[in-house]
């Protein structure tokens, strides 16, 4: 491939390939090579960065500002760190309405304050009209470690959980961006996952925020890191009613739709029920559910399997290309 294609940034397998084959060989070092959502730095710190180019910049349930803060917070939380400081870099297209910018800045401020994160450094660039689309945001965050993911300790019987209905962010963006002329109540699930932090000391072995590529991609990537196959039950995966209706009409598999405020957890078998009742008390995880478990009988190492309501099994593959609704 001679040119970078859009699919290399879609969160799917091509992006994984791109990172492994193009980026890692260039920058190889022991911090980067862990390939977690954040890097673990001495002494006891986690460090992460992310860029936001979402289109549209305002969508039902959030905006590019709240998204950029929550995204960074969530990357730290699932790495076992309590977010403390953030940087904020803005790339703004000439001509952006000042009122629009103010709305975004206010949203950033509120989201950071609510989560006790301080924005301590930043940068602003303005580019000529047409050379960026309204506004792009880059953030970086540092946090103090309160726990560490232990994928190597995951063993058969451990439970796989999600913190709520999946796919709503991806669908909300899709419906706002594309002119399907569908009205829908689906709102982005964009939210901070700070409430997960205590679970690092209560039996959580691994967490990942479910972003691009959706639940299926996260599960399949986890399967690559664990010594045992994973099995989830389709009927147990929470999906909101309005999302179910919309994905039926559009022919989209909700397991590949992104979230921005949901996480997948692997929890020790003995602690699973306690963790579930803890989660259900959190405003951001009232519909948390145990959706499956780590296997030693069904499947093979490296496989993430989905059990359908009729009892069939299918493999969950990572996202391969951008989602497209069916054409006939």
């Amino acid at each position: 491939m001679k040119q970078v294609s859009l699919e290399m940034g879609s969160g799917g397998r091509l992006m994984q390939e791109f990172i492994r084959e193009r980026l890692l060989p260039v920058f190889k070092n022991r911090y980067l090579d862990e390939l977690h959502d954040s890097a673990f730095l001495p002494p006891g710190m986690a460090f992460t960065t992310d860029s936001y180019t979402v289109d549209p910049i305002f969508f039902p349930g959030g905006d590019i500002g709240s998204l950029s803060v929550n995204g960074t917070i969530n990357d730290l939380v699932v790495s076992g760190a309590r977010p403390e400081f953030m940087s904020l870099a803005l790339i703004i297209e000439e001509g952006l309405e000042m009122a629009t910018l103010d709305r975004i800045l206010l949203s950033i401020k509120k989201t950071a304050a609510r989560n006790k994160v301080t924005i301590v450094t930043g940068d602003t660039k303005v580019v000529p009209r047409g050379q960026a689309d309204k506004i792009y945001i880059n953030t970086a965050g540092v946090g103090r470690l309160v726990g560490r993911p232990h994928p190597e300790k995951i063993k058969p019987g451990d439970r796989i959980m999600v913190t709520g209905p999946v796919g709503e962010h991806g669908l909300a963006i899709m419906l706002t961006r594309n002119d399907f002329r569908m009205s829908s109540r689906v709102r982005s699930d964009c939210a901070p996952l700070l409430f997960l932090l205590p679970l690092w000391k209560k039996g959580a072995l691994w967490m990942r925020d479910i972003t691009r590529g959706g639940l299926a991609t996260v599960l399949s990537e986890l399967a690559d890191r664990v010594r045992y196959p994973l099995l989830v039950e389709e009927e147990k995966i929470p999906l909101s009613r309005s999302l179910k209706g919309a994905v039926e009409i559009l022919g989209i598999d909700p397991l590949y739709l992104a979230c921005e405020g949901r996480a997948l957890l692997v929890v020790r078998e003995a602690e699973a029920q306690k963790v579930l009742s803890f989660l259900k008390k959190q405003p951001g995880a009232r519909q948390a559910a145990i959706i499956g478990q780590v296997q030693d009988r069904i499947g093979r190492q490296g496989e993430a399997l989905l059990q359908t309501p009729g009892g069939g099994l299918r493999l969950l593959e990572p996202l391969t290309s951008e989602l497209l609704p069916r054409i006939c």
Partner: protein
Amino acid sequence: MTPKSPPREPFSDWRSGSTVRRLLQAIAAEVGAINRPLRIMEVCGTHTMTLHRSGLKPLLKEAGVVMISGPGCPVCITPDFYHEAIIDLVTSRDNLVITTFGDMTRVPTRKGALQTTVPAPGSEIRIVYSPEEALQLARKNPEREVIFFGAGFETTIPAIAYTVKKAAQEQLKNFSLLAALWLIPPALEAILQSGDVAIDGFIYPGHVSVIVGEQAYRFVAENYRIPGAIAGFEPADVLLGILSVARQVKENRPTVANEYRRVVSAEGNPRALALMAEMLEPFEAEWRGLGRIKNSGLKLRSQWQDYDAVARFQMTFQPATGRDSGCRCGQVLKGLVEPMDCPLFGRACDPEHPRGPCMVSYEGACLIEYKYSSGARKK
């Protein structure tokens, strides 16, 4: 009156585990009485998708039913030369907007794929989600030529034909259609006539049937004595269709059963059929894999020639001769081989590096097989 029970989930009845298990048992009982395994072709790619997504294929095999994927994927059966002609056009002419469905842009041809084609200055390739969107682009950009490269079966043909009718009514001068429009019944007849594949019955495509009705498949039961059932797209829908076919085989009474009555009527959609007849006429079209089939394609009638991109831009088609990339898409579409039988499958050909359209389209048998069953194991 307020409802007593909470509102039900969409389609929950058609997906419930207990319904699916009961239907599988009933199918196993019928096949048991026939005393040999059944080979049933699901014509439509969306049925292939249902079978894989719900994990039904292996369960059906246990029940004695082998499912064979048919030609029901418009992206797959459109020959490369359509893409090549439109690639030639968009790279040589400026001020064009080529619009098409997403999957169509990824089909690999001798001239590359639309997705990676660099258009002439001022021209562009845009993915649209409906033909109406293409028409809207033409309205908004009167100074540019908008071409809709539309591939589809009876399901989408009326909507595509309607855009041309609308364009004519509105006297839009900058809209045209490159029609890759295909009819299912002639393709079924071609498969039956070739005699290459042993088929005990068909699961007819639900969406196509909404338009063409039950009558379109009568010849299969009457002339070829092959059972069939129209089915919807939920797991229970497809299983009901299979159960019906199994019963027809057992009783030796082939017919066109309608197991999708909630949307399909005997006569189809007369208004859509009338619109198709008004705008389009059949011709002997070439299908990938199936070759030339009489009356199997539709093109704009001569009075709408102004809206026909082929006439308007003097497009020329160059059917491939002697090209052999090893891709067995053609045989997959005919039900002759399964995706796994292709030497390229999962090795030289995967969704990121497709060698043929069956690995591109979301209704393509190879992509579905790769995604849901065996892809990872081949790696």
